[in-house]
C-alpha cells in the first residue's frame, strides 16, 4: 500500500492585531493580569473584507503551491468552521471555485466547534484510502466571535490552515482516532451572534478529559510512546491549557513549544491546532514524528500521528511560512476593531 498523508499545507492569518491590554482598557480590567493568566498577548483581527471563506481561499492557495498538483485533481473539499458566512449556502463551493478544483466534487461544510477542520482531514484521508478520490482538501478556518466584555473577547481570533491529502505526501498520516461525548461546555444557538460558555466547566470535564483520553487511547492503539514523538500539537483555547495537557500526558514542554502560536494570534478556533501543525511542518525534518490532538466543544478530540518525509524540504519553501504571517502585523485600537467587526450601524 502506498503512503497517504499531507501532500501540501498552507496557512493564512489576517494582518491586523489587537493587544489584550487594549481590550482590557475598555472594560476597566487588569490587562497585565489577564495576559498572564491566559498566556495570550494579542490576537489577530480580520479586516473588514476578510471572513472564513477568504481566509480558507488564501490558505488553500498556499497549500496548492506546496503540493504542486493541478487543482483539477482535487475531488473533495471540506471546510470546518463555526463562522461560515452563510447559515445556508456552503463555504466549500466558493472556495472550490476560487482555487479552480474539479466540479466532480465531494463537498460539505463541517461543524464541530474547534475540531471540524481535523474532522475534514480524517474524511479526506478515508476517501483517498478507499480510492474514491485522488486528492482531498481539508480546511480549518474561522473568524471567531466573542461577546464584547466577555472573557472570550480577549482570545477569539481569525485564521486558518489548509491541507491537501493524497499520495506522495510530505507527512504520512500513520493513524488517527477520535473520542467524543455529549458535553455542552460551549455553544451558540441559531440566530445568536455570540456563543455562550460554561466558565470553568470548559476545563477538566471538557478540554482536558477529551484531549487526554483521545491521546491516551491513540497511544494504546498504535503502540507509540511519548518518546516516539518529536513534536506535539494540541488545540489552543489559550496559552495554558495545551501545556497542562502535555504535562498530564507525560510529554516534556519543549515538544509543544513550536506549535504554541496562540500567544501572538489568539485562539483561531477551527484554525487553532492546524496552525500549530503548520508551524511545526515549517521546521520539522524528515523522519520526525508529530502528534496532533484537536478539541471541539460539545465535545470531542481527533488524534493523529504524522511521519515527516524527505519531500518536506523542497516543498515547504514554495509558500510563506506561518511565522511570516505571525510577524507581519499592524495594530488596531478598540474603536477600529469595533468598526472592522461590523458592529457599527451606519
Amino acid at each position, binding site marked *: 500500500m502506498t503512503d497517504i498523508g499531507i501532500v501540501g499545507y498552507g496557512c493564512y492569518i489576517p494582518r491586523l492585531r489587537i493587544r489584550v491590554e487594549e481590550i482590557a482598557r475598555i472594560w476597566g480590567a487588569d490587562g497585565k493580569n489577564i495576559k498572564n493568566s491566559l498566556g495570550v498577548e494579542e490576537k489577530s483581527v480580520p479586516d473588514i*473584507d476578510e*471572513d472564513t471563506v*477568504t481566509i480558507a481561499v488564501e490558505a488553500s492557495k498556499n497549500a496548492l503551491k506546496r503540493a504542486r498538483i493541478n487543482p483539477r485533481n482535487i475531488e473533495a473539499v471540506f471546510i470546518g468552521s463555526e463562522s461560515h458566512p452563510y447559515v445556508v449556502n456552503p463555504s466549500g463551493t466558493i472556495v472550490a*471555485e*476560487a482555487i479552480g478544483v474539479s466540479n466532480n466534487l465531494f463537498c460539505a461544510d463541517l461543524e464541530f466547534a474547534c475540531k471540524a477542520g481535523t474532522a475534514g482531514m480524517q474524511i479526506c484521508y478515508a476517501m483517498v484510502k478507499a480510492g474514491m478520490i485522488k486528492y482531498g482538501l481539508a480546511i480549518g478556518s474561522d473568524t471567531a466571535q466573542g461577546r464584547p466584555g466577555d472573557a472570550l473577547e480577549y482570545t477569539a481570533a481569525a485564521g486558518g490552515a489548509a491541507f491537501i491529502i493524497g499520495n506522495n505526501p510530505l507527512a504520512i498520516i500513520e493513524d488517527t482516532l477520535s473520542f467524543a461525548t455529549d458535553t455542552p461546555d460551549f455553544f451558540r444557538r441559531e440566530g445568536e451572534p455570540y456563543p455562550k460558555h460554561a466558565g470553568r466547566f470548559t476545563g477538566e470535564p471538557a478540554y482536558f478529559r477529551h484531549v487526554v483520553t483521545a491521546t491516551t487511547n491513540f497511544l494504546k492503539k498504535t503502540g507509540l510512546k511519548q518518546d516516539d514523538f518529536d513534536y506535539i500539537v494540541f488545540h489552543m483555547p489559550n496559552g495554558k491549557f495545551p501545556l497542562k495537557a502535555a504535562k498530564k500526558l507525560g510529554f516534556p514542554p519543549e515538544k509543544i513549544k513550536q506549535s504554541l502560536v496562540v500567544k501572538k494570534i489568539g485562539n483561531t478556533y477551527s484554525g487553532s491546532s492546524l496552525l500549530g501543525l503548520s508551524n511545526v511542518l515549517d521546521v520539522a525534518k524528515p523522519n520526525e514524528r508529530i502528534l496532533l490532538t484537536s478539541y471541539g466543544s460539545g465535545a470531542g478530540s481527533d488524534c493523529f500521528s504524522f511521519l515527516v518525509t524527505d519531500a518536506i524540504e523542497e516543498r515547504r519553501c514554495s509558500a510563506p511560512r506561518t511565522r511570516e504571517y505571525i510577524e507581519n502585523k499592524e495594530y488596531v485600537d478598540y474603536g477600529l476593531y469595533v468598526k472592522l467587526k461590523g458592529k457599527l450601524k451606519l
Partner: protein
Amino acid sequence: MPNKSSIPLSWRLNKSIYRLVGNKCKRCGTFFFPSRDICPKCRRKGDIEEVVFSGEGEVYSYTMINVAPKGFEQQTPYLIGIIKLKEGPLITGQIVRPNNNIEIGKKVYAVFRKLTEDSKSGIIKYGFKFKIKD
C-alpha cells in the same frame, strides 16, 4: 460593481472575478481581461483561448476613496487602483490595507476578499483585490 446587481449576473462573472480568468489571442499574443469573444486586432483570423492570470502586476494609478458608493460605506477610507497586470491588461480593483505605503510602480499581487454584500441578509460578493508586495 453595482449594488444589488442580479445574482445570475454576478454568478456568470464568478470565475473571472474569483480567479482572474480572462483570455488571450493565440495568433497575436494579446491578453484580455475581462474576456473578449473576438480579438480586435486579428478579427476573424484571431484564435481566442482561456487564460488564468498570475495576479501579479504594478500600480499604474490610484486614488483614495473617502465618500463611497452604496454598499461600500463601511470600508472608507480605501484605495482603488488601476493595475497593470504582468501579462499586459490594465484592470481596476481595490488595493487592501495598509493605505500608507502606496506609490505608482509598486508591485502588487491579487488576493481573495469580500467585495460587498447586498445587505446583512443578502448575497455576499467575493473576488480579487490587490495587495502591495512587502
